[in-house]
């Protein structure tokens, strides 16, 4: 399976080609090359997936873990070496499929969406860079390789968010995204160092097979602030994941990241990069579940809170991309919760499977939502809901595909979201009732805000689209990806996921629990949709009356519960003013002062003795004579 290397190398070569040729290449040419390369990569990954699941298949009833390619990149000592390689196991193969598919769709879609934009070639180069880094991340054989690609992903995300670098809001959004995720990555790095220090390895295979025991054994008795060293390590690693996956309270960058081009949001900030944190936790799941179940509980609760928190905010947002961003945060939190409530082995590992399942289905329908939103934005040239209405008449394809995606995310059978969300809820039900009911409520809220979005865009009162031409359906280059993704959104739910992806690689059978999980969740979702329909389909007065009645709560939600302000206060008032300012003062006055003082003393001394170097020969001679006389006198009389 060495050819799996091609999946990763192709985008890298594309990036180099497109990036180096830059503006010399015609935009159309760059787009076609980028898309064709991505198509090739997608093809290879499908072949790899096929060969993995149906060619190699299972050994002893479990899916194998294959490392088709591995090089020792940095050799420090026999124990400490950093490898680069490819690790194929069910989740990485699944991720390859997701990333290449969505990436290809976005490539095709961008041909239409970004048509005529300045820097089209640069855009495709960055897309290739992102694809390369993301693919490298998921096939990482060791945690350090993952960290390297993790940072590369962060960089490409930064570049793409800041694609419209002439727009100040885009620039600050890209900086915000980069700084927040970097801050989280600091925790990740410390976690990696702690973990590998105690286990003596970076390798995933080693960590997940016997690493858990290793961690427990090697860190026994070492604790800090009441938590064991292992817990600290794993919690810090989770911090990295939480930053990338926008878990509360590190979620603040994701809504702002919507300043980037919409296809980028679809690819990076909905389908692939933001689930990297989930993937990280899933990758290290055996360590979490055996060594540090307490951290897993923490993950579950953070996830639950984030899911609810983001869903509530999503209700009030008016920028359609921001609604989708908060919905993404909420859905990723679902995956996190699902991992958090999972246990190991067989049906106990339902949560793990459900998490991966949801990751898989979510990638498609969320990408579809974003691309559909992009299509709408393309038509009306605005992100605001107020500017839209009754677009179903103008944009039938977008309308239908968007509806499919909304049904999928709301969890209406037979669309894919229903199946995966159902598994998550089932896993929660068996673990913790509180989490279950919270997530059930979130499912209802999700259905409500998604259909609020849907009705506001495609139904409601028709707006006067003055100032420019009538909205029209997007070109084929944009609608074809929508249709493909719609097909995925409908049918991926029928994939028997427990057959392929389980925590211990051994397939098990999962059933939909109609009575306790499925029926309630469908009812809740239907209720949400109905409320949204009443509120927004015809455009009623009800929503504004309710929002007035809620008053401060509504405002708080609209302002995203002031999280940005809290962070701003924390960084500006606490970190900058209380900590950095004294340090800066110390640096400026004490450290620099010492240096300046030295310079000042030197200068004064030079000034005072520079008279000796007057260039006056006679002075020199006089000093010479006096000096030799003094020396002679000393020799004589001492």
């Amino acid at each position, binding site marked *: 399976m060495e050819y799996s290397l091609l999946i990763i190398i192709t985008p890298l070569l594309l990036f180099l080609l497109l990036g180096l040729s830059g503006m010399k290449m015609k935009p159309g040419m760059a787009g076609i090359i980028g898309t064709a390369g991505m198509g090739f990569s997608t093809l290879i990954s499908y072949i790899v997936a096929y060969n993995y699941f149906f060619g190699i298949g299972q050994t002893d009833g479990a899916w194998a873990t294959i490392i088709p390619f591995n090089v020792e990149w940095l050799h420090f000592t026999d124990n400490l070496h950093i490898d680069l390689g490819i690790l194929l196991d069910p989740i990485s193969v699944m991720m390859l499929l997701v990333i290449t598919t969505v990436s290809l769709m976005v490539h095709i879609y961008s041909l239409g969406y970004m048509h005529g934009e300045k820097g089209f070639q640069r855009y495709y180069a960055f897309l290739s860079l992102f694809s390369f880094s993301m693919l490298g991340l998921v096939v990482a054989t060791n945690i350090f390789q993952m960290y390297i690609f993790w940072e590369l992903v962060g960089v490409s995300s930064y570049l793409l968010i800041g694609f419209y670098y002439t727009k100040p809001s885009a620039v600050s959004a890209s900086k915000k995204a980069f700084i927040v995720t970097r801050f989280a990555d600091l925790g990740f790095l410390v976690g990696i160092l702690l973990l590998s220090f105690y286990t003596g390895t970076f390798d995933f295979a080693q960590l997940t097979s016997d690493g858990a025991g290793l961690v427990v054994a090697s860190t026994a008795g070492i604790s800090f602030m009441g938590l064991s060293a292992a817990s600290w390590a794993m919690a810090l690693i989770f911090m990295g994941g939480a930053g990338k996956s926008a878990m509360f309270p590190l979620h603040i960058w994701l809504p702002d990241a919507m300043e980037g081009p919409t296809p980028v949001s679809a690819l990076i900030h909905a389908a692939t990069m933001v689930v990297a944190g989930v993937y990280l936790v899933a990758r290290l799941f055996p360590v979490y579940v055996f060594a540090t179940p307490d951290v897993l509980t923490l993950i579950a609760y953070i996830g639950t809170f984030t899911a609810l928190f983001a869903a509530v905010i999503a209700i009030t947002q008016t920028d359609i991309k921001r609604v989708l961003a908060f919905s993404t945060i909420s859905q990723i939190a679902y995956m996190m919760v699902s991992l958090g409530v999972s246990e190991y082995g067989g049906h106990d590992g339902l949560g793990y499977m459900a998490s991966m399942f949801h990751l898989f289905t979510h990638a498609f329908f969320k990408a579809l939502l974003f691309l559909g939103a992009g299509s709408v934005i393309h038509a009306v040239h605005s992100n605001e809901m107020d500017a839209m209405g009754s677009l179903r008449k103008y944009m039938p394809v977008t309308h239908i595909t968007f509806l499919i995606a909304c049904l999928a995310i709301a969890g209406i059978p037979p669309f894919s979201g229903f199946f995966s969300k159902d598994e998550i809820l089932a896993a929660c039900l068996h673990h913790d009732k509180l989490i279950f009911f919270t997530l059930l409520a979130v499912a209802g809220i999700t259905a409500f805000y998604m259909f609020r979005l849907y009705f506001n865009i495609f139904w409601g009162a028709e707006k006067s689209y003055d100032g420019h031409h009538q909205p029209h359906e997007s070109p084929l280059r944009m609608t074809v990806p929508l249709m493909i993704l719609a097909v995925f959104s409908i049918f991926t739910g029928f994939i028997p996921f427990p057959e392929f992806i389980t925590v211990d690689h051994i397939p098990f059978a999962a059933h939909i629990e109609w009575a306790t999980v499925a029926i309630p969740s469908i009812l809740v979702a239907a209720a949400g949709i109905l409320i949204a329909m009443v509120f927004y389909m015809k455009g009623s007065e009800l929503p504004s009356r309710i929002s007035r009645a809620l008053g401060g709560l509504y405002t708080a939600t609209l302002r995203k519960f002031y999280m940005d302000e809290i962070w701003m206060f924390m960084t500006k008032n606490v970190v900058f003013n209380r900590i950095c300012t004294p340090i800066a003062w110390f640096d400026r006055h004490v450290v620099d002062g010492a240096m300046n003082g030295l310079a000042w003393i030197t200068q004064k001394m030079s000034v005072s003795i520079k008279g000796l170097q007057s260039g006056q020969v*006679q002075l020199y001679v*006089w000093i010479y*004579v*006096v000096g030799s*006389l003094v020396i*002679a*006198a000393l020799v*004589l009389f001492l």
Partner: protein
Amino acid sequence: MVNFIIFCCLAVMIVVMSILAVTAKKILRAATYLLFVLIGTAGLYLLLNYHFLAAVQVSVYAGGIVVLFIFAIFLTSNKGEMVETHNIRRIIYGVLTSVAGIALAGFVLLKHRFLYSGNATVEGDTEINMKMIGTALMGTEKYQYLLPFEVLSVLLLACIIGGILIARKK
């Protein structure tokens, strides 16, 4: 005794003329006083029975260097520049330094006992003849000076060329 009187006359002349040479307001006079000092020195060499040295002293110093000085003085003289403006601080420093030096050197000199036995050779007719000087100057044996002589000739050549180069008009 006659020698001693001559020596005293020469000594007084040398010291007085030296002082005048370094204090004279006019540079041309200073050069003239220098000439007297040099001639006095030649006299001392004669007293020491170094006749050849005395001859060299007179011809090189008095005949060469002093003439050179006088030419240089004429070449560099401006109207009004001849008068040396004295700086009192400079003079005080110079006098103090010189007095200190004289005191120190004189102390060493008077405290020290030289190991020369008698003075017969000094008073006697021990003139070194020209043949000895010539042999020593041109020989390559021990205590003979052909190499320094040749080096000196190269030095003089370099000095001639250097003098021409430096003083040449651009």
